[in-house]
């Protein structure tokens, strides 16, 4: 069974290395301030204990006040998985650090989130729209696209 690491043991490992990097956790989700995201991900990958060498998925959810980015990652060696969440504030131009240099698998997924949700990832190799054409107005997956937010 793929063990999903709970908040305590993740926090114990990560906060020990990077001060103030864990905002809060509940169950198996760990919230990280958006500034620390890149560091936490890099640490999660390189730390022999965690060894998160496989990024499963990056999902973006639009909660009207903020965007939430959910990073599912797992370790093939230790067969356990971890969920890191972070909040991006601001609706005009939410930006967050890209994790492509940690896992190359994040390349297309971040481009898709940029394309459909409008979150720009800093120092991403070629951040262009992936599914829609270049001149497409707006970002369709946002809640306020084409109809007022519910």
């Amino acid at each position, binding site marked *: 069974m793929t063990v999903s690491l709970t908040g305590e043991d993740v926090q114990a490992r990560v906060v020990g290395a990077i001060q103030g990097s864990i905002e809060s956790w509940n169950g198996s989700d760990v919230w990280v301030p958006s500034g620390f995201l890149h560091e936490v991900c890099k640490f999660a990958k390189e730390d022999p204990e965690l060894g998160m060498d496989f990024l499963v998925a990056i999902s973006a959810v639009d909660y009207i006040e903020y965007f939430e980015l959910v990073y599912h990652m797992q370790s093939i060696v230790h067969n356990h998985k971890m969920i890191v969440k972070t909040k991006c504030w601001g609706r005009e131009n939410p930006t967050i650090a890209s994790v492509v240099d940690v896992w190359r698998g994040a390349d297309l997924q971040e481009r898709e989130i940029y394309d459909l949700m409008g979150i720009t990832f800093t120092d991403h190799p070629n951040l262009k729209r*992936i599914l829609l054409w270049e001149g497409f107005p707006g970002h369709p997956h946002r809640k306020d696209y084409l109809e007022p937010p519910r």
Partner: protein
Amino acid sequence: MPIRTEPVTVNIGPQHPSTHGVFRLRVTFDGEVVQDLEPVFGYLHRGSEKLAEERTYSQVVTLTDRLDYVASMSNNLAYVRSVEKLAGVRPPDRAMYLRVISAELQRIASHLVATGFLLQDLGAFGTPLMYCFRERERILDLFEMLCGARVTFSYMRVGGVFQDAPGEFWIALDKFLGDMPHYIDEYEQLLSGNEILLTRTKDVGVLTSETAMDCSITGPVLRASGVDWDLRKVDPYEIYDRIDFDVPLGTVGDNYDRYLMRIEEMRQSLRIVSECVKQISSGPVKADVPWLVRPPVGDAYDHVEGPKGELGFYLVSDGGIAPYRCKIRSPSLINLTAVKDMLVGGKLSDMIVTMGSIDINMGEVDR
């Protein structure tokens, strides 16, 4: 005096006989050698994730059929499992057995399509493709008996399956399980030893296990590179822990390994289905979940080992009858991240064959 040559850019365009759907590769060639390439997709983007936010949880099942239109049973299974995880529902045993049987049959059908079209790209004029499709038709007949449709099944519901299998389904299934191994031996005899296939696919489009893991590749492509990661073994869901089967692994990670993976996985799926048929017990087929299921507020991510790789659904619920957000982790899209490593340096014909062996499905890439 060096010969003045210049690279030529060619659109292996959305409309091309062997791009497996509307998929475009803007490739710069130096003679026949691929210098640089850039995949372009989005031609089949139907906004399934946005549509899912407009439909109730049970209606989204019909949406998931059209994601990977060659393996719509495992799409249903992945979606329905994540809704059950969100709603905290456990389907009865017989439903889980029926789901595993249909998911494994769907894996065989999808691998048949992948192998058939791989040989079509290699140039064997239609013969292996027709043999693979002849067997796939028998699986589609089985599915027609089971759920009335041949491609878009919508067979699974939250909490189980919508109806039990009819009597004639089991008879036809036993007959199919009896014949299929003989047909797979025929494919092996026709293809695996074929010298031309060997020279064309061995050491072509090699993907090392480090790059595969780094680019979060999943499915037969990952296992062909030697990484031992099959969700049915590593994180057994439904009733896979009650069934013993093997997971084939490759050694080099080239096209030939990926072809061998699919042929071997077909045999293992047959083993799984015949074991399920033995172990299945009678009982209800659907947990009593209301049609308008309202899962509690929260989110859940669940994944399934589909024929193309790990297909996952990340569902966020705000307590309403429709999902607040339904993110689809599509294996074909992510398997394309390493496409540059495999293709650059190879020739035009290798590029077509490697694209065929990665086995992408544009319905799943563009969603």
